[in-house]
């Protein structure tokens, strides 16, 4: 306990330094700004804004990126409530009751309770991260390559189970991602693999390039097909502070959602995305009068929004302690850390304690900032929505281009981004969700490295994965999870769960 206090003390003294405060502030602001734009989710936002952090020291860069991430999440909810456009997938549930509240003239209260719930959830999850960060890191340090490999297999298995839509398609995308990860020079023999003789590919496919193409550019390609939705109707925002009655109604949902969101957020793949859906379903079941839901029930905003924020934050746990990114956003964080010469994993905490704890403390500060800066700025965000898409998409495109070019100062990266944009577009058209691919891609390299290390240690015997108890158990669980997912009974239940 004393440890925790001194660690958090170190964190706050880092995060509260003027420069880091400024970076957190800028991150939250631009994150919200971009997050408000429809069709630009958190992944594209972070990929696009990554260059902003190139010249900052690693701690500051990660603080800023984390700010961008929360900002993007928050921006998505704002538009969900005000104009019924979920800025990103986790805000989809919020549109149901949030926008209904806005129609009743209670937009301000919906925004207010979303902010309050998020802040509460953020505070709790920050404490969770701080509390279990250290023990998990110690656990991770005793993990050998075999355990790591098994853990990542389990991670991918869970990601597949939690993915939306067909299990088969999710498996396909994960395997595709793993295959993409093998492109480049072989780690041990230095042989070029699947590079087509292209020199730029000898270091493998760049993660930022892939993410920007598949999420940033492909989104634009898809959005221009749809006719522009004009005339954003905006009612009165009204007062922002919820009444005592509103707070009383929301308290339970916020607490429950924080728990659900925090647990689901740690899980790989769609975990953080499922939180809001799960919370909404739960509150609807618990409600004395479920028919109020969908017509502006404040519980339907308070719960999902809290779950959303809790999940967004606990998703950092696997990344910071084990070095395994649980989802695409965290994978981008890996990319950002690598650019700054940091290798995510258990050593981050022991070798860079100011970075680790500073980032955790800044999460809380970022949440507070969002609460304070966003509510007064709602008018600005709404005006932003009125910018026509014909001006918006060329701008987003230019930002993407400059961003990608700046990472390595190499025009080839720009061409690859265009190529992966096309790939992403084709995948979406074929009903293949690109998110699991990105996860497979990120884990792919790590997995191959650990697999070969483990086999080198065991002199080529695959028995090592069974003989080592932890690795064996993890693999068995992974197998069980996959088998359960394809069982007909569970499959039906799963489909129903995603229907809601």
């Amino acid at each position, binding site marked *: 306990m004393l440890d925790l206090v001194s660690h958090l003390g170190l964190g706050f003294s880092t995060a509260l330094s003027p420069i880091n405060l400024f970076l957190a502030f800028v991150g939250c602001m631009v994150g919200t700004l971009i997050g408000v734009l429809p069709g630009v989710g958190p992944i594209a936002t972070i990929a696009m804004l990554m260059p902003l952090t190139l010249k900052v020291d690693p701690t500051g860069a990660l603080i800023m990126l984390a700010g961008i991430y929360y900002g993007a999440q928050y921006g998505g909810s704002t538009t969900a409530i005000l104009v019924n456009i979920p800025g990103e997938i986790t805000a989809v549930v919020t549109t149901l009751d949030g926008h209904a509240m806005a129609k009743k003239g209670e937009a301000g209260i919906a925004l207010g309770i979303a902010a309050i719930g998020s802040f509460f959830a953020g505070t709790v999850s920050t404490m969770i991260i701080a509390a279990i960060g250290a023990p998990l890191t110690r656990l991770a340090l005793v993990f050998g390559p075999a355990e790591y490999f098994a853990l990542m297999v389990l991670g991918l298995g869970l990601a597949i189970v939690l993915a939306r839509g067909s299990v088969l398609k999710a498996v396909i995308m994960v395997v595709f991602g793993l295959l993409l990860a093998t492109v480049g020079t072989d780690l041990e023999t230095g042989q070029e693999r699947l590079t087509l003789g292209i020199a730029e590919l000898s270091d493998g496919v760049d993660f930022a390039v892939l993410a920007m193409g598949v999420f940033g550019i492909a989104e634009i390609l898809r959005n*221009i097909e749809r006719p522009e939705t004009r005339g954003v109707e905006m009612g009165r925002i009204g007062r922002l502070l919820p009444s005592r009655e509103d707070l009383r109604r929301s308290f339970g949902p916020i607490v429950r959602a924080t728990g659900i969101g925090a647990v689901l957020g740690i899980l790989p793949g769609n975990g953080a995305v499922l939180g809001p859906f799960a919370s909404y379903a739960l509150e609807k079941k618990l409600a004395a009068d479920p028919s109020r839901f969908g017509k502006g029930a404040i519980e339907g905003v308070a719960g999902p929004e809290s779950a959303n924020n809790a999940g967004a934050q606990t998703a950092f746990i696997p990344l910071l302690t084990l070095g395994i990114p649980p989802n695409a956003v965290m994978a981008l964080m890996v990319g950002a850390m690598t650019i700054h010469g940091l290798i995510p994993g258990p050593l981050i905490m022991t070798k860079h304690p100011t970075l680790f704890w500073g980032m955790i403390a800044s999460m809380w500060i970022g949440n507070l900032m969002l609460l304070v800066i966003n509510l007064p700025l709602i008018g600005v965000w709404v005006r932003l929505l009125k910018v026509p898409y014909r001006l918006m998409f060329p701008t987003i495109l230019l930002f993407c281009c400059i961003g990608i070019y700046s990472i390595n100062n190499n025009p080839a990266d*720009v061409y690859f981004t265009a190529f992966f944009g096309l790939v992403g577009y084709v995948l979406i058209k074929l009903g293949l969700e690109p998110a699991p691919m990105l996860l497979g891609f990120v884990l792919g390299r790590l997995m191959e490295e650990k697999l070969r290390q483990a086999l080198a240690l065991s002199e080529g015997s695959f028995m090592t994965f069974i003989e080592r108890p932890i690795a064996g158990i993890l693999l068995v669980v992974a197998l069980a999870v996959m088998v359960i997912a394809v069982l007909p009974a569970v499959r039906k239940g799963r489909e129903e769960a995603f229907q809601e």
Partner: protein
Amino acid sequence: MSRMTSRQDFIGGLVVIAVAGFALWLAGDLPSGTSGGIGPGTLPKGLAALLGLLGVLLVATSVAKEGSPLERWSIRGPAIILGAVVAFGLTVRPLGLVVAGPLSILVAALAGEEVRWRETTLFGVLMTGFCIGLFKFALGLPVPLAPWLLGY
């Protein structure tokens, strides 16, 4: 094709099989493994084979079930947008951001439903100015501005 076929999955499966085949062909001459470990070719080949298998499975299941039809594809919009990105890549080094910025915005704007030349040109120039201020001066990123004019 019968009405019971999910065309989207059917074609998706074929694409997956094609990708897997391509990867298998590329990985063909990589050594597959040595005693005491796995070689550089093991994983690419294994994964490609697995991917192909999954593709076959997708095709097989698509025939047996009803599913989404193929979405409408457009070629013009995506081609123009990707063209704008490529145009940026081609011009940024030799001509700098001063040219690449407005050019990519102008090309991209062609993808819209209506093209307003004056508005777009003005907007492209202003936006480029903003980007130069932000990325070049405020952030100090080494994006070339106008090498032919300024030397950087």
